[in-house]
């Protein structure tokens, strides 16, 4: 186990080195933030002063060294736009993103897994076939379109849910979250559903495929011969064997959603990290972009680590060594 942890940690470091170089090079090459900072008809001296202030006069490798040194202390520089430390801005936005993502993932797991189990166990049933048809729509419809349709139907036509924004924020366990207020929940529903659809359909189809495979296995029939009721065989015996690929995809989807909620957050004006990233890219706010990408890289490695641990809990045959 210790060896595994060391292995994982070194893997994380390697990933971070590679990502940091990529991030640094690309953000340095693309766009010039100097002209965003100086006034429109700035003199040559003013531009030069801005360049020195940003440290852009030094050669690239030196700048990378400074970047890494600062990054290790959690300092990615001040946002060119907000004039605050980049990491602090990201961590302020993080709860807003994580809350819609958690609601979305819970929603997709709680809906997709039971439906997947059902349609995998009774594939010829009319209901199962309808589920599969609808799930194709879930995979293929783009989220910006779904988001707009949801706003149109539930907010504009029916008027039962708010159009956009985060709503009231309450404090729960010391964290500011919309999950603590009714208004927050009302605001969370539409963006979460929009986010959930894609992963819901994917998890559903994967669960179904796994169930169909496992239902043919002997141990399912043996469990039935032991007198275990069908429902218990489905959820107790077959589902647990199906979960390995489902957990993998679930982890990837979770990371993907946290990292790239940009479209949904933009549609619903949700003040999360995704919207922050889009704004930062538009204004060439390098510190935010690089801090964000490194943050996402760390998170992906962490989620995959958790997924690996889950494997060993689900399937005893998997050994981390």
């Amino acid at each position, binding site marked *: 186990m210790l060896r595994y942890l060391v292995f994982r940690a070194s893997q994380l470091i390697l990933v971070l080195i590679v990502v940091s170089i990529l991030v640094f090079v690309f953000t340095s090459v693309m766009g010039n933030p100097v002209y965003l900072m100086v006034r429109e008809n700035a003199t040559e001296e003013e531009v030069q002063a801005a360049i020195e202030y940003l440290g852009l006069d030094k050669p690239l490798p030196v700048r990378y060294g400074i970047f890494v040194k600062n990054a290790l202390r959690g300092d990615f520089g001040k946002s060119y736009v907000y004039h605050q430390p980049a990491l602090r801005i990201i961590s302020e936005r993080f709860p807003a993103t994580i809350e819609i993502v958690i609601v979305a993932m819970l929603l997709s797991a709680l809906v997709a897994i039971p439906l997947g189990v059902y349609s995998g166990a009774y594939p010829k049933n009319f209901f199962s076939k309808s589920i599969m048809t609808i799930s194709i729509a879930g995979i293929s419809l783009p989220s910006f379109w779904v988001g707009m349709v949801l706003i149109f139907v539930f907010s504009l036509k029916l008027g039962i849910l708010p159009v956009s924004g985060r709503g009231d924020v309450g404090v729960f366990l010391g964290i500011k979250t919309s999950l603590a207020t009714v208004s927050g929940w009302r605001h969370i529903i539409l963006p979460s559903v929009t986010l959930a659809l894609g992963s819901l359909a994917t998890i559903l189809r994967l669960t179904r495929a796994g169930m169909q495979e496992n239902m043919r296995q002997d141990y399912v029939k043996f469990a039935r011969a032991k007198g275990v009721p069908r429902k218990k065989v489905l959820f107790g015996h077959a589902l647990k064997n199906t979960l390995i690929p489902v957990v993998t995809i679930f982890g990837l989807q979770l990371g993907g959603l946290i990292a790239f909620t940009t479209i949904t957050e933009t549609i619903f004006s949700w003040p999360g990290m995704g919207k922050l990233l889009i704004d930062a890219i538009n204004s060439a706010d390098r510190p935010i972009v690089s801090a964000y990408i490194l943050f996402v890289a760390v998170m992906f490695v962490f989620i995959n680590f958790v997924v690996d641990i889950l494997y060993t809990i689900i399937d005893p*045959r998997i050994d981390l060594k």
Partner: protein
Amino acid sequence: MNKLLEVKGLKTYFHTFKGTVKAVDNVSFDIHEGEILGVVGESGGGKSVTGFSVIRLIDEPGQIESGEIIFNGTNLLKKSESEMNKVRGKEISMVFQDPMTSLNPVYTIGEQMDEVLLLHEKLNKHERRNRCIELLKDVGISNPESRLKNYPHQFSGGMRQRVVIAIALAANPKLIIADEPTTALDVTIQSQILKLMKKLVEEHGVALMLITHDLAVVSEMADRINVMYCGKIVESGYTREIIENYTHPYTEGLLNSIPDIDKDKSKLNTIPGIVPNMFDLPKGCNFSPRCKNCQDICLEKEPKLTEIGENHYVSCHFPLRKEAN
């Protein structure tokens, strides 16, 4: 001895796009309490489907069309699913062919044994654990206490089959249906497992329906034998009678194809031809295309199962007679 199980006119058909397969076609037999009944025949003869029909675990597109399965005086075909779940594992349990796949890989042996006891016996946690340990001891697994925590992949094939047998015995059933219980095992392990099964069913007074393609296995174990061919019983009787006074040419073929180590032969005997396509069975007797004694009537008329000796039935127009040879 009392009749424990009585199957009358059982028909289990599989309805597929290609047509209907009559996997079990009008089969009747019975098993007495504590008796070992061997069911033999080639692959595709309907032996397994017969076994699964008794416990009513026929998967789509299979269906039990008609017949009666009277177990302990009640017709199992009239029971609801939830009533059947009280019979499965409790009254009738099963042992499958491949122990590598019949245990769930993600649960410990202890959990899988406990499941049966939890379903069928009114025991508390401690009593169930003790019973599991006792059962593992019975089937010859050493260190049962620590083995309970192990997963199936930590056992060898033979050990797993012992665990499966322990699970089958757990709730003290009256009948165990063993579907090719040794086919997937090493030859050296096969006889161990068979001896163990014979010993256990005798000790516990359980009846055993032993399904196998291996007539040699059956002749050592069974009290009576049913020979099945293409979904029908072609010959049935006491083991001695079948082995010594077989009358159906198919039984003769099966017996002759057992290799005999004492006889120095360069070639193994086989039954000529192959099992006919189940979608398109021959007219008349199903065995006629492979039968050396085939006559005109065999191609026209299907023979009926008739009593030829005491409790000895055969379905053949021209049953073989040992005396005549």
